[in-house]
């Protein structure tokens, strides 16, 4: 049983990781659009549209996978989140709808002008909004202020997430997504000015990530939730922290050196992966913290027959999906990868 739970968690973790690495970068592209260089705005929008259009629908499906695994494999986690994080999850959903529609509508807008502008605005603002609430929701699952017994409006709807820690987490995720988008997009264009802008944006986003990371550790340090202590006593998060920090130097070199966008991409992916690994390590085996105690994945897991069937489906699903997904990326991303 414990093996089944852990095996399912591997898929869950992979789903979250891929959603961040692929879907997150799509949100990041929307975030970057808020900071366009006036002269190169149209060019940058074109680069983003061209890079995102063929793959964003597929990237979005990782989230569906995460939701399905939670819902089927860990129903208690799923329902607790949907009840006690009602508002941030709702906000997240609104953002997802607005972002997806705005992007598609802009892409198929044949009239241009004012409509193009408003679709663009909706696309960037909802990207920031959604990324922020993804971070807030993730933060709230760690912090442990979800209050199953509270009865006031504040305790029921706001206490779990309206606090400096979760807000920092939200901003951290915004910066992280923007960072990913900037380093990916570096490889999607040959134009020197666009490259320069993207590298600068990547550096800024990285700075934001570091600043917000400090904030996360500062505010996540209550008596019931000593994040720093938990983080630095866990072997895996220690290791991932050290490696990620060491990678910052070659990343910085890469961002300064115009020629090496492949290296920048690879290091960017590594850093983000390590950040997530550190988070998973701190979180495991707890799924959610609440005011009346922790809910572990083990305790929240579905019965054995369900986990078995879920795992079987996931394995078969992966065997079908991965080749198809590989082909999709080969068709649309191979050229860019070779050039970089």
């Amino acid at each position, binding site marked *: 049983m414990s093996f089944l739970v852990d095996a399912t968690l591997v898929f869950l973790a992979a789903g979250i990781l891929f959603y961040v690495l692929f879907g997150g970068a799509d949100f990041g592209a929307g975030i970057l659009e808020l900071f366009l260089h006036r002269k190169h705005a149209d060019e940058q929008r074109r680069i983003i549209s061209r890079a995102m*259009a*063929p*793959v964003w*629908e*597929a990237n*979005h*499906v990782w*989230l*569906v*996978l995460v*939701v*399905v*695994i939670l*819902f*089927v*494999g860990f*129903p*208690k986690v*799923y*329902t607790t*989140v*949907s*009840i006690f994080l*009602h508002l941030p*999850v*709702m906000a997240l*959903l*609104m953002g*997802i*709808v607005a972002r*997806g*529609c705005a*992007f*598609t*509508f802009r*892409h*198929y*807008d*044949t*009239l241009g002008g004012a409509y193009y502008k408003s679709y663009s605005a909706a696309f960037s603002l909802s990207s920031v909004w959604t990324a922020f609430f993804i971070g807030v929701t993730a933060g709230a699952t760690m912090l442990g202020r979800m209050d199953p017994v509270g009865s006031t409006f504040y305790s*029921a*709807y706001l206490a779990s997430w309206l606090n400096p820690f979760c807000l920092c987490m939200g901003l951290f995720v915004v910066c992280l997504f923007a960072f990913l988008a900037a380093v990916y997009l570096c490889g999607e264009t040959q134009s020197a000015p666009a490259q320069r802008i993207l590298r600068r944006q990547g550096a800024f986003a990285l700075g934001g990530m570091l600043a917000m990371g400090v904030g996360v550790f500062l505010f996540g340090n209550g008596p019931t939730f000593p994040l720093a202590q938990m983080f630095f006593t866990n072997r895996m998060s220690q290791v991932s922290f050290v490696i990620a920090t060491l990678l910052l130097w070659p990343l910085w070199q890469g961002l300064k050196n115009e020629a090496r966008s492949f290296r920048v991409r690879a290091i960017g992916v590594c850093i983000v992966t390590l950040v997530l690994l550190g988070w998973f390590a701190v979180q495991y085996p707890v799924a959610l913290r609440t005011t009346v105690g922790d809910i572990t994945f083990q305790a929240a897991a*579905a*019965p054995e*027959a*369900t986990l078995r*069937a*879920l795992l079987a*489906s*996931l394995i*078969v*699903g992966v065997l*079908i*999906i991965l080749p*198809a*997904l590989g*082909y*999709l990326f080969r*068709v*649309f991303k191979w050229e860019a990868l070779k050039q970089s």
Partner: protein
Amino acid sequence: MDLLAARWQMAISLGFHIIYASIGIAMPFLMATSYWLYLRNKKKIYLTLTKAWSKGVAIFFAVGAVSGTVLSFELGLLWPKFMEHAGPIIGMPFSWEGTAFFLEAIALGIFLYGWKRVSPYLHWTCGLLVGIAGVTSAFFVICANAWMNSPAGFDWNGGNPINIDPWAAMFNDAALLQGLHMVVAAFQAVGFAVAGLHALLWLRTQFDLHLKATKIAFCFAAIASLAQPIVGDFAAKSVARRQPAKLAAMEAHFETMKRAPLLVGGIPDEATGKTRFGIELPGLLSFLAFGDFDAEVKGLNDIPRKEWPPVAITHYAFQVMVGIGTLLALFSLVGLLFLWRAPKKFESPTLLKVLVACIPLGFIAIESGWVVTEVGRQPWIIYGFMRTSEALTPRPGVIYSLALYALIYALLSVVSVFLLTAQVKSLHKELR
């Protein structure tokens, strides 16, 4: 109050999503047909049509995909108790649906942006794959809904499910017929809407492309419409066997009797347990429900009041669905005869105008059908096991989220219609 608001929110969300999902099911097949015609006889007009339709697919797929994702969360937000119990039992089709949806998104990406990057026949296969994956996802999602009508694969132990068998739950008694009924309905509704829309555009512009489009779409619609009465009959028989209360509400049938009459129209009165002004066709309900004119059909009066679905709504919705279904089937027969025997007459303005009038009918029938399924299942969320009121979120304020979602869906509908008109305009510019 909260219960009503939550049910309305589900109704609006599902009612919105089903339109986009239906388009996602049927439209790729139309697109692939047109593309096939182009690949076979290299007439440019079919390529233009394929591209025009593919843009429609992209717009509707995106909106359908995001509204579907939202639905998966909404279920948890509004009905946490249901999701907690149902998840382990009926989650299986959702994970398969996820896989199908993934494939659909990948194939669509390759189809929309791979015109010059992959070989024509592989490209065509991707287009077809979008449709096949769409149909498959629809089947899986409907498996889950069918399970709410026909729960299977678990034992109920004082409010908790034990001995869970996810595969038995997925392949429950209602799944196959309900899925088939919906997929056929999608082809019917989308086929007629597209045929009607292009008929309208042809009447206005006389572009040959629109006539070709009308014919392709009509063929799909007509075949589906002729198949639907048969599928629908099987589906109704399955309801009669499993959910007597739903069947009784559909027919506004109050008294248990043998040789029960089929009711056409009529105003049911729940207080008195009588239905006025209906036309009764003797014995036909017994025959349609059980294949025997003398079979006994259970009436609502023999079902405890607390387990009645809202009778009037279910009855009216059923009448609308069956009425439209019959009309479309008859019209399909006529249209197909013309197309086969006298193609010129098919192009007559009168016939095309009738087609224009059919644009919304299929969708109205789909919505009515879902009203029958969902309202007719009340007061249960899991038929016979869990009441809808037990599953409701303990949080107050559902009404605000209802208002918000209604607003968003209204906005999305307006924008998608607006975009569609813009696409048509630019297509016409291209044709001129």
